[in-house]
């Protein structure tokens, strides 16, 4: 006997985050409304979707609010020097190319202090997934402006508005030679999950610029009412999906960030190339 369709009810089965977390380290230290927690959840769901074993994944971070992430997740983890997470990650990947290495880094960590490492990691196209948490501020040290702070924004070090033009992490990654460049936001969390999943599965340097909100410093200094208000203004209204962007007139795209996969090409991967040279020379002997 078949069950009538109307009797089938939607059943909610929430994702079990606990299997990837270190429960004794929670609750985390991030401020109320901080977008990093939302991004962390999207990252865990994306990792779960890839089906990799916990021991095959290594999460590496530098210094900063976002870089607290490895402390909460139950993978192989490293909390390293400010800006040097990518150098450590290159070393880990080179020593054990079977590991899936994910670098969690902030905008200041990746683009200011570690700008040089960022460029050269992209240039080598080594198989790393780089998640740049862009909250446009240095939250841990008291809200100084960062390389992605929009012009005219207030910070503790720019009381009359920032006069520095901001970086676009995606453009820089693309120009430096990364083979996968994407952008997501904490607001569009399901889209972000898909983007991170695609980035992890891609062979080569994959950079995902993730726009999230810092309500404590950036929000308060720039007169945002709440974390929700920030998410709506910065993440929802200020971004356009790359698939919709073609249909929109140019004046509607002005000053907006594009979300989704912005650049994806096939390129020789660093570890594979190194291995092929080793094999070639071993055969010659």
């Amino acid at each position, binding site marked *: 006997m078949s069950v009538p369709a109307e009797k089938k*009810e*939607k*059943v*909610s*089965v*929430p*994702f079990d*985050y606990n299997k990837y*977390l270190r429960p004794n380290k*929670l*609750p*985390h230290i*991030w*401020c*109320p*409304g*901080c*977008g*990093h*927690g*939302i991004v962390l*959840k999207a990252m865990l769901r994306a990792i779960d979707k890839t089906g990799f074993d916990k021991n095959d994944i290594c999460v590496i971070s530098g210094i900063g609010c976002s870089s607290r992430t490895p402390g909460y997740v139950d993978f192989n983890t490293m909390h390293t020097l400010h800006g040097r997470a990518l150098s450590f990650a290159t070393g880990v990947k080179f020593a054990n190319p079977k590991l899936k290495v994910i670098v969690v880094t902030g905008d200041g960590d990746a683009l200011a202090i570690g700008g040089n490492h960022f460029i050269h990691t992209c240039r080598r196209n080594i198989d790393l997934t780089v998640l740049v948490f862009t909250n446009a501020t240095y939250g841990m040290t008291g809200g100084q402006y960062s390389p992605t702070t929009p012009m005219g924004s207030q910070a503790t070090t720019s009381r009359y508005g920032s006069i520095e033009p901001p970086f676009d992490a995606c453009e820089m990654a693309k120009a430096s030679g990364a083979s996968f460049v994407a952008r997501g936001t*904490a*607001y569009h*969390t*399901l889209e972000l999950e898909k983007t991170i999943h695609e980035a992890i599965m891609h062979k080569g340097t994959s950079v995902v610029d993730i726009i999230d909100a810092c*309500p404590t410093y950036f929000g308060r200094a720039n007169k945002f009412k*709440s*974390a*929700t208000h920030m*998410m709506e203004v910065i993440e929802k209204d200020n971004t356009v999906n790359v698939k919709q962007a073609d249909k929109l007139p140019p004046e509607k795209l002005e000053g907006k960030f594009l979300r989704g996969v912005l650049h994806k090409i096939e390129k020789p991967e660093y570890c594979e190339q190194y291995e092929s040279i080793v094999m070639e020379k071993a055969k010659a002997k």
Partner: protein
Amino acid sequence: MADAAKKLPNIVINEKFCKGCSICVDFCPTDVLEMKGTCVAVKNLEACTRCQLCDLRCPDFAIQVFG
């Protein structure tokens, strides 16, 4: 009759983890949740559609929808 038999979801809130950012309250499409002091509470469980947006956007692992 059908309404009485309708199974309600179970919204589990971890009060120790909730920091009171009110993201779940503001983004709930059917206005199920409310703020009680600095912690979220269920106001109108019947309206819940199990969309899980509260769970997806909670930065603190504090709310989940079961059932």
